[in-house]
C-alpha cells in the first residue's frame, strides 16, 4: 500500500516531503504549545545530532532536541505511571526519548531539558512531554561543547 505523500514548505528548512504515517501526534500539545499536536521529526545535514521537531500545525515552530544518552550516558529518568498509561506503552523497547535543547542567541551556550523528556511511542506515533516533577534533573542542564557520540571522525 502506498502511503500518502505530503509536501510542505517550511519557513526554516524549505520544502519537505514526508508520509502521513511519519507524523507524530502529541494529543496534549506541549507546555507552551498546547494547540500544536502534529509534529514531524527531521534531521538536517548540518546538524546530524539534532532532531528537529517541526510543527505541522504552525510551520514557523520547530524545536531542536537530542537523544539525551548521546550527551549524558547515565541519564536515568524515572517516568511516572501516567506516561506509560496515557501513551499505551507496553514495553521499554517501543518508545523513544528526546530532550529539548535551548541555544543562546549567539550559540555560546546550550542547555538540555532533562526534567521534561519527550516520550514517543514508536508503535502508535503518539508522544507527550513528561515533566519529572520532584526529580533532581535540571530543565537547563548545560550541554558539554563536544558531544561524544555525534561523530567519531573528529
Amino acid at each position, binding site marked *: 500500500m502506498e502511503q500518502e505523500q505530503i509536501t510542505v514548505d517550511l519557513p526554516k528548512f524549505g520544502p519537505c516531503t514526508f508520509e502521513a504515517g511519519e507524523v507524530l501526534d502529541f494529543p496534549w500539545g506541549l507546555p507552551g504549545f498546547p494547540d500544536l499536536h502534529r509534529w514531524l521529526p527531521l534531521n538536517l545535514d548540518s546538524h546530524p545530532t539534532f532532531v528537529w521537531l517541526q510543527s505541522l500545525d504552525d510551520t514557523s515552530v520547530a524545536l*531542536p532536541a537530542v537523544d539525551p544518552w548521546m550527551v549524558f550516558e547515565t541519564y536515568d529518568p524515572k517516568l511516572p505511571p501516567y506516561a506509560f498509561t496515557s501513551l499505551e506503552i507496553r514495553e521499554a523497547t517501543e518508545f523513544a526519548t528526546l530532550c529539548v535543547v535551548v541555544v543562546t542567541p549567539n550559540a555560546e551556550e546550550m542547555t538540555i531539558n532533562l526534567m*521534561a523528556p519527550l516520550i514517543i511511542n514508536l508503535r502508535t506515533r503518539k508522544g507527550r512531554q513528561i515533566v519529572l516533577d520532584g526529580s533532581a534533573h535540571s530543565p537547563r542542564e548545560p550541554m558539554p561543547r563536544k558531544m561524544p557520540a555525534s561523530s567519531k571522525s573528529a
Partner: protein
Amino acid sequence: MLVLSRKINQSIMIGDDIRIVIVAVDRDQVKLGIEAPRTVPVHRSEVYEEIRRTNQEALGAAPVATGKPERATLKPRTKPNR
C-alpha cells in the same frame, strides 16, 4: 475563580475522580493531598511554568540551521533498561 473554604481533613472533588484533601496548615504553608487517576499528571505550577518557558526559548533561540530537511528515524532508548 471559584473560592472554597475548607478545614483540615476536608476535601474537594474535581470531576468524578480527583480529590484534593487539606492535610495540614502551618502559618503560610498548606499541605495538600491529591488523589487522581494514574493517567492524570499533577505538577506544582512553577515547575510546569519553567518547562513552558524552556520550550518557548528553544523555539526563539534555535540555532541557524541549514541543509536539506530529512525525515529523522527515532529509535528506542539507547541505554539498556536493565
